[in-house]
């Protein structure tokens, strides 16, 4: 389901699910269950909580599906519900969601390139140092910037959809992403080649 034709057919699936079709609803759950879970887990770093909130999100969606199918903004609506569920839970628990845990970026390999298109690897120790630097850089980003990065890279939402999820103007989201992206590269010491 990655083409426009599939997108239109998915709208038909949503329409059928809104009428109580279990097969159609199963397809919706299969398509988005993992994505919602991944987003929530990346934000809270708690597997049980992420699954609980994922189920809560879909239980809410299934009862209100009929009113939102026609709007054609299912994905932003779904992820906004998920994000709101997470915020409510974190507020209830009295602590903030962990934006990026140390484990998240442990496998990342960021190496400043020196003229080539392929990243260079200079040994395992250097990878660990760079991973630690990236973790620190991500944690130093503002909460809103981290949300944008997660919605983009984990949920796979477009900037337009991210703007709808966060209920912010598209220009604001683009500017925040641009600034966060550049700051991330600066903090990691990845310089542009001239």
């Amino acid at each position: 389901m990655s083409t426009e034709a599939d997108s239109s057919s998915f709208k038909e699936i949503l329409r059928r699910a809104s009428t109580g079709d279990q097969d159609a609803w199963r397809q919706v759950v299969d398509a988005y269950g993992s994505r919602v879970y991944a987003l929530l887990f990346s934000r809270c770093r708690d597997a049980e909580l992420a699954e609980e909130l994922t189920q809560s999100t879909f239980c809410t969606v299934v009862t209100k599906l009929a009113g939102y199918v026609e709007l054609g903004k299912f994905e932003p609506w779904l992820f906004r519900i998920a994000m709101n569920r997470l915020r409510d839970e974190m507020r209830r628990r009295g602590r903030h969601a962990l934006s990026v845990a140390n484990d998240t970026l442990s496998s990342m390999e960021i190496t400043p390139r020196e003229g080539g298109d392929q990243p260079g690897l200079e040994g395992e120790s250097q990878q660990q140092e760079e991973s630690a630097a990236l973790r620190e850089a991500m944690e130093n980003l503002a909460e809103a910037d981290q949300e944008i990065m997660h919605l983009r890279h984990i949920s796979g939402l477009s900037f337009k959809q991210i703007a709808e999820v966060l209920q912010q103007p598209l220009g604001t989201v683009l500017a925040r992403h641009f600034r966060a992206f550049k700051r991330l590269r600066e903090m990691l010491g990845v310089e542009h080649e001239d």
Partner: protein
Amino acid sequence: MNHFPREHFMNGSEPHPEALDDGFDAQDRHFDELLSSSLGDDIQVPVGLCDRIFSASLEGLQAGPRPLPFQTPRRSFPMQWIGLAACVGFLMVAGFWMLSVDGVQRQDRMSDLVQVASDPAPRMETERASAQLLSSEAEMMLMAMSDERDTFGTLSPYITTRSIRYDDFSGDLVAVLDAMQNPAMQTYDLEWRQ
């Protein structure tokens, strides 16, 4: 930063992030791809997650689509006007009724005031009755509470012989008591009043 979001990745179970626009160079794009490939690498979706989500949301699905509020079928235009006219008529009748009731109550209140002001006899009877209610023992007690022992001594013969009453001095017991407790006012003033 011009941005033209591409929608081809919408509604996908395996989405990939929207490509960066012309504001980013090749290194930025590579770094962006690295983020996308690395951020979710450590997220392990629990086995059977979608099954549990489906089971949890099945009850809501079987309950059927719930009608959204304010989506009842609209009435015809003439019926809306008739309803509006009925509401306005009801409000006007209610307003007239409240005004008429208020006017009657106001007239009754004014007549009561006139009746009280034109008939002083009940007030005198009330004063006389209150004077009779005050026993001699109470009068003695009130006198004993006075700081002016001399005044009490002067007035005590009158009280003990019951030749006069306090209201005989001025017609007002309170005035007598005030005079007794007022050092500037002597007993002869009371006698003079008599």
